[in-house]
């Protein structure tokens, strides 16, 4: 039996063929290198003008005193915007409010989403419809949801207080009392975004190989053992990812506060994105609003890094 020789075309021939292929029709005579550049330039241009330039410009503005609607140009003031923000106790209160909101909302969404995903991760009649219904809230516009919840939670006309009244529970000023206002926006956010956690957890659960459970069955492993040593390790990276997405998203939360509480009562629900909006577009402290946005960005990047590092460590194991 003779040796089978396979002749591969030389690199030069392959390159020539590629150029010829590209040369037919649109872009005739364009080399592969040029084509790459043509495709990349619009993307880079968009990135440059839509993201990189505004980032650099806003960073510059954060060190200036500037009002976007006034005639005067930006005036460099060094770090005084940052100093003022970090020394204002009312701004710190807003940081705390934001932290409370994010921690509460993400934690509740995570727990509820996880439990619901475990319940839905089995075969039963109508599973498809029920799963779809569960996912519906996150497909609505946040402003519409804010309006709905404003009606639902209205102290005098709201259906929530009506139902509570049937059980003899006195009316609660959900969106207008210090005791409840923050929880009212947490409840609204949880209603809207628990399905996101549910979806990612469900996706994670579907990747766990069935034979692992079968093997565990043979070994008469308990339900807890199966959950702890099979389910959880498989879905954990996806859960971390879901937490990362939701945390970042919760920090950007704005629409529902705008519609539901308007930051009140007092400023008890003025989370940072809402405060930045006020500073930037109502008080026109453009420089200061850029400074606080950068402080906020650094916090989000730091938090995200914790998640990402944890994810890398999990993968390394």
């Amino acid at each position, binding site marked *: 039996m003779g040796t089978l020789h396979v002749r591969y075309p030389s690199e030069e021939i392959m390159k020539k063929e590629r150029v010829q292929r590209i040369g037919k029709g649109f872009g005739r005579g364009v080399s592969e290198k040029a084509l790459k550049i043509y495709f990349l330039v619009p993307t880079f241009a968009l990135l440059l003008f839509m993201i990189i330039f505004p980032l650099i410009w806003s960073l510059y503005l954060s060190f200036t005193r500037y*009002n*976007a*609607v*006034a*005639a005067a140009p930006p005036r460099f003031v060094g770090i005084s915007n940052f100093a003022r923000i970090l020394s204002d106790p009312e701004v710190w209160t807003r940081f705390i409010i934001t932290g409370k909101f994010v921690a509460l909302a993400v934690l509740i969404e995570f727990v509820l989403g996880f439990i619901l995903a475990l319940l839905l991760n089995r075969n039963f009649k109508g599973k498809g419809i029920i799963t779809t219904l569960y996912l519906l809230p996150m497909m609505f516009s946040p402003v519409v949801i804010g309006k709905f919840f404003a009606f639902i939670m*209205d*102290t*005098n*006309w709201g259906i929530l207080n009506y139902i509570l009244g049937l059980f003899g529970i006195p*009316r609660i*000023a*959900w*969106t*207008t*009392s*210090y005791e409840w206002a923050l929880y009212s926006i947490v409840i609204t956010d949880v209603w809207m975004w628990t399905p996101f956690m549910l979806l990612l957890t469900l996706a994670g659960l579907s990747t766990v190989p069935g034979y692992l459970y079968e093997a565990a069955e043979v070994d008469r492993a308990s339900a807890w053992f199966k959950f702890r040593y099979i389910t959880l390790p498989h879905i954990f990276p996806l859960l971390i990812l879901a937490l990362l997405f939701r945390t970042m998203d919760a920090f950007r939360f704005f629409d529902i506060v705008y519609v539901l*509480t*308007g*930051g*009140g*009562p*007092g*400023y008890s629900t003025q989370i940072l994105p809402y405060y930045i909006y*006020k500073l930037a*577009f*109502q*008080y*026109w402290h453009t420089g200061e609003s850029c400074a606080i946005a950068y402080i906020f960005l650094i916090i989000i990047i730091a938090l995200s890094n914790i998640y990402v590092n944890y994810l890398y460590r999990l993968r390394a194991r």
Partner: protein
Amino acid sequence: MKKLFLILMSVLLAGMMVTGVAPAQKKVTLTVTWAAWYPADYLIKLSNDFTRQNPNIKVKGAFIPWPQYHDRVFTEFASGKPSFDIAVPDSQWIGEAVEGGHLLDISDWMKKNINFDDWYEFPLRSYGEYPDYSGHWYGVPLLLDFVMCAYRKDLFNDPKEKAAFKSKYGYDLGVPKTWQELLDIARFFTRPKKNLYGFATWQAPIATAGLADVFLGPFWSMGGNLWDPRTKHVEGILNNWYGIDAAKFWVELYKTQPPGSSNYSIDETMTAMQQGLVAMIGIYAMFYPGLLDPSLSMYVDKTGFFTEPGAIGRDGVFRHFVQLGGQGLAVSAYTPYKEEALKFIKWTTTDDFLWKWTEGGNFTPKKTIVEDPAFLKKFPNAEIAKVVRESAPLLRDFWEIPQYNEMGEYLSIQLNQAILGKITPEQAMDNIAKRHEEILRRAGYYKD
């Protein structure tokens, strides 16, 4: 062919010169931006008359919902190329817009075209002059607005209620003349078990359509002042005993309001009256159509209106001030159609336009219209027309400087905390005075 064309053109031009026919004037469409509400639609409807008189100038509206109105207008101004030629800014925006260089200076035009004596001085200056009494003009009044009160006539006229009120307070139940009387009536009608409350008004912690708008009426009438108008200093003035009295009064008045009303703004206050939850409300007068619309209100026939009351201050002096709202017309500094815009503005100040404006149920601060005997008949609701006539000479407005939004919001937030018992009225007024001074100092109002 070319020769023939030239000959024809020459003949045409010569013919036009001989017969005196000028080439057709350029057609212009003016865009007016305003909040999306009834008066805006009515203005555009009436502007057809203007177009009939000036066939080359059409007027169209670009209206924005109230909550987004300020932000949209100023974002467009900031771009330097707004989509409108004429704006109808709220009275307090004028400083913000003028300092930004966004409005056309019409000082000379005003002197030639407006007879100042024909107008109530305070609204004329508020809608058009900046800084106050500087002689620099940027707008003319269009829609007068002010805080007005509405009440349930059926409750006020009920003989049993009248007798019960008299036996409790010692005087007749009727439209209150002072805020102190209003508080008595509000307390009298506060009956939580019957789901009836005395009063509702804007308590939302926001600068516009919030607590500041309605608090300042009693504040001024009780003797309060926002600052020293000469030095602009606030501490010791806003938070003096008169100011604190007003804050304490406001906290007491909130106790007569429906539960959960600390975020009430336009819609919520209107709904409270429309659904019979309260006996009285305080609201900007131009929202009255919502109270007289049977498809919205269950108490159309039972709703009456009265002028925002005055008050007796701790010095025993009766003062009477009414909070100004409303909007003027101003020309964008960026429009290429300045001449046409001024022509339109001039038309809106004519008696012909303003009588039609009045017949449509809109208010004007033109004294010659409001004080004309025909005004009470021509305005669709005589009771409201009477309130307009009483309120127009009593008007006052808050800061019209660019910092008004931040100052108004801080005031609203602090008093919102006070009505909810988070801080005392004294603390609220002290905090406001301190922060207002900080804001004004940063903005460069103090030389010291």
